[in-house]
């Protein structure tokens, strides 16, 4: 597994996390610290670095998560050209159409935060997800009720202010 970053402060943190994952699977001998790579904090330098990496390492899978700008398309297309299976997730919306168009699976918005809970057996994050879903449901109901009230001429904001 090769992990690449645009933020250098993530390198030591990720190194520990990934090493722990190898330890958990009893495969510490397969862990290579040089595979935790800071490429560049500049978006095009980062994407250029990844294009080279995809071709050199002949990657099988590309999992890209985080906040992306224009480099998202370059990275995703580069991995597509390399023949990699792709999963992408972002909490932003600007690059979602791009990753939706290019990647095999997409984590949209909140799914990005929920992915770990779905993969985990830990009841705490799963419970938190359930709580978020209920909160969102309430928000949707509130939005629909508010819209209908406004259409019917009831300014619901005045009642809330009371």
């Amino acid at each position: 597994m090769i992990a690449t970053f645009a933020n250098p402060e993530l390198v030591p943190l990720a190194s520990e996390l990934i090493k722990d994952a190898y330890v958990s699977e009893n495969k510490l001998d397969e862990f290579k610290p040089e595979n935790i790579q800071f490429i560049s904090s500049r978006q095009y330098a980062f994407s250029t670095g990844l294009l080279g990496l995809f071709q050199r390492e002949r990657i099988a899978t590309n999992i890209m998560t985080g906040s992306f700008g224009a480099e998202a398309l370059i990275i995703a297309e580069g991995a597509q050209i390399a023949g990699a299976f792709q999963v992408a997730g972002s909490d932003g919306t600007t690059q979602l159409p791009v990753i939706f168009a290019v990647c095999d699976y997409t984590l949209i918005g909140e799914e990005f935060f929920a992915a770990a809970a779905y993969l985990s057996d830990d009841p705490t994050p799963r419970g938190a997800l359930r709580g978020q879903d209920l909160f969102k449901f309430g928000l949707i109901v509130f939005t629909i009720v508010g819209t209908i009230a406004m259409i019917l001429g009831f300014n619901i904001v005045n009642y809330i202010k009371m």
Partner: protein
Amino acid sequence: MSLIRRDLPVWIAFLVGVIILADYVFTFPGLQVASTTLTNWAVIVTAFSFGIGALNIIQRQSKIIIRRDKYWIYSVVLIIILFGTLGIGLVGSINHPYYKILFDNVMAPLNVTMSSMLAFFLASAAFRVFRAKNFESILLLIAAVFVMLQNAPIGELIWPGLPVIGDFFVTGFAAGGNRGIQIGAAIASIGFGVRILIGQEKRWFGRTE
């Protein structure tokens, strides 16, 4: 081990998070000083982390050069450029003429090259997604055609209603969907932040066992 590895990061995250959040709500002068100090620390830590990043690059590329891996010569170029730029920046400053030459003649053209390559990648991605292989692709294709005709002058010439339909896709479906995703992501990020603050989210610093 457990104290340093598990409890200490949780308490640090909790204290820092509470101070920063409380500064938004309360107006105690002491709190404001503490919050500003912590924010400044974050800036300093981030600046130092670039040193870690450079070290990471040097370690990795040095190994490639020593092992004479495939394309090792590119690692030599990278190391020379890295130390060259660093040296010029340290001896002179970022306003040094050589530093400016490097930036204007190497960094800027490379950035523009990659930026212009976006057009080709975009065409390639558009070709793949517009093949209408499933229902979602068909919907995307229909929406894209209307939005393209809305933005292209020929759309209005063909039929004045085309830009109106395109505009409906942008301000109706796209804006609505966008806001829905943003609200969901905001709620999820608040939930995630609260879990970190109260110590229920421990995956970010490794094993919990």
